């Protein structure tokens, strides 16, 4: 039986989605950092290098890099490789704009640190309208 936890944050892009978590402590630049044709992270030196964001609930601190990143998020959606949802510590305009364009739920400012509370592989439901995030823990904690 999976352990469950519920967090509440600020809903920025008011859509709903769920999927397997993919978590990193590093920022993500979608422009140049994520391949819009495959959904694979391609930023050299990134701890998620080679991982696929398709249908994942992507958890990272905040966006970085060029504002063209918003367009790349939109193109991921058109190509069938969009994340199911994004959770940021504190989001910024590149990610917010991209999520609105691509209709990806986006929540930030959770009442607990999502990067330590959520593990890659956990199942996460995100409600961008209410800001609620439900985590079904599948990955053992220490």
């Amino acid at each position, binding site marked *: 039986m999976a352990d469950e936890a519920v967090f509440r944050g*600020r809903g*920025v*892009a008011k859509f709903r989605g769920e999927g397997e978590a993919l978590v990193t402590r590093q920022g993500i630049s979608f422009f140049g950092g994520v391949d*819009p044709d495959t959904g694979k992270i391609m930023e050299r030196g990134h701890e998620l290098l080679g991982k696929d964001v398709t249908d994942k609930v992507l958890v990272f601190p905040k966006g970085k890099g060029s*504002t*063209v990143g*918003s*367009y*790349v998020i*939109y*193109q991921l959606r*058109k190509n069938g490789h969009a994340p199911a949802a994004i959770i940021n510590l504190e*989001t*910024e*305009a*590149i990610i*917010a*704009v991209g*999520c*609105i*364009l691509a209709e990806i739920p*986006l929540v*930030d400012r959770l009442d607990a640190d999502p990067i330590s509370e959520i593990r890659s592989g956990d199942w996460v439901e995100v409600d961008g309208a209410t800001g609620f995030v439900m985590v079904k823990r599948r990955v053992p904690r220490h």
Partner: protein
Amino acid sequence: MHLDSEEEGILNGREGAAAKKAMELLVAIGEVMGAERMVRVTSSQVSGVSYGNIGDAGLQLLEDWAENGARVRVPTTLNPCGMDLERWKEMGVDGSYRAKQLRIIEAFRRMGVSTTCTCTPYLVGNLPKEGDHIAWSESSAVCYANSVIGARTNREGGPSALAAAIVGRTPMYGLHLEENRAPTVIIDVQAELRTRHDFSLLGYAVGRRVGSGVPLFEGIRRADRDDLKIMSAALAASGGIAMFHIPGVTPEAGRWQCRGLERVAVGARDLEDCREALTCDGEPDLCCIGCPHCSLEELEEVARLVKGRRVAHGKALWVWTSKKVREEGERTGHVRTIEEAGGMVFTDTCMVVCPLERAGFRHMVTDSCKAAHYVPSTAGMKTTVAELREAVSRVMENGR
């Protein structure tokens, strides 16, 4: 965020799917940035126009928006695109790049955007009044508009500027609010500013040193429009500066008490450090003038410098401006003077956003620190910075 009834209506889809999406986008930005309400804008200027910059991702979004009925409701102009729309072959641009660039321009045209592509909208008729709220995205034009014109804009991204144009509003935060326009640091200018290039070096030095905020410059007695234009570009390239004040020169400088602010001295040594940082060894083979796009007066200065001379074999002089300024320069004969000397006057694009590397040059000399800041990464070229007369001479016969 508080929305009025018209804004609520747009958000609920009363004015169509495209306006609804644009409003959703602006509300999200407003909430992220802590805006309490929207403010009406009188003009917009949209970046992300070059195919080389936004790629297939941007092209797809713009065509989708045009198809979904997105239409701008305030005067809107474009940033430079990726090629001269007429003289693209001379730049080494190929047919497939050209085709996609033209599709981007066409998508903007369908949305009602004026397809004038320039980083100096204020020189070609998109000139706001002091106190106007606007949504501009070209960083040098943002800095110029806030500082020199006294209009109010944040540094927008391409999609947020387009969304603002579509609903005629932008979230009211940042530089739209009076209190955020106050000086945050005093720059004690101890260097003598002899040429326009010195203003570019000063902007570059201050951007590097203070990074962000609103600098107030002391020690600048006079500066013309083109000095302020090139300094705005440098401040926004080496730092994230979107506004500055110069007492006696810019319109809002006198509004503020500056007691207790941090003071930073910038002298000749700091300018020299920037010149060295942007200058490589070796001989330039391409001189680029026009970052930001040349005014008619700057076109005239270049013409005066090259009159009766020739560009050296194997080298090139490329001057960048808007279509409107080129047309004026054709009437005054300055374009012909530059072309007779072997130079080119390109429009709609610039050295930073066109595929400069395809033309086969290796080393660019320019008077603009912004251009020298970006070209090593955008085109993989070496750079040298120098004041206008010297920069031009480096590619002329019997030059240095």
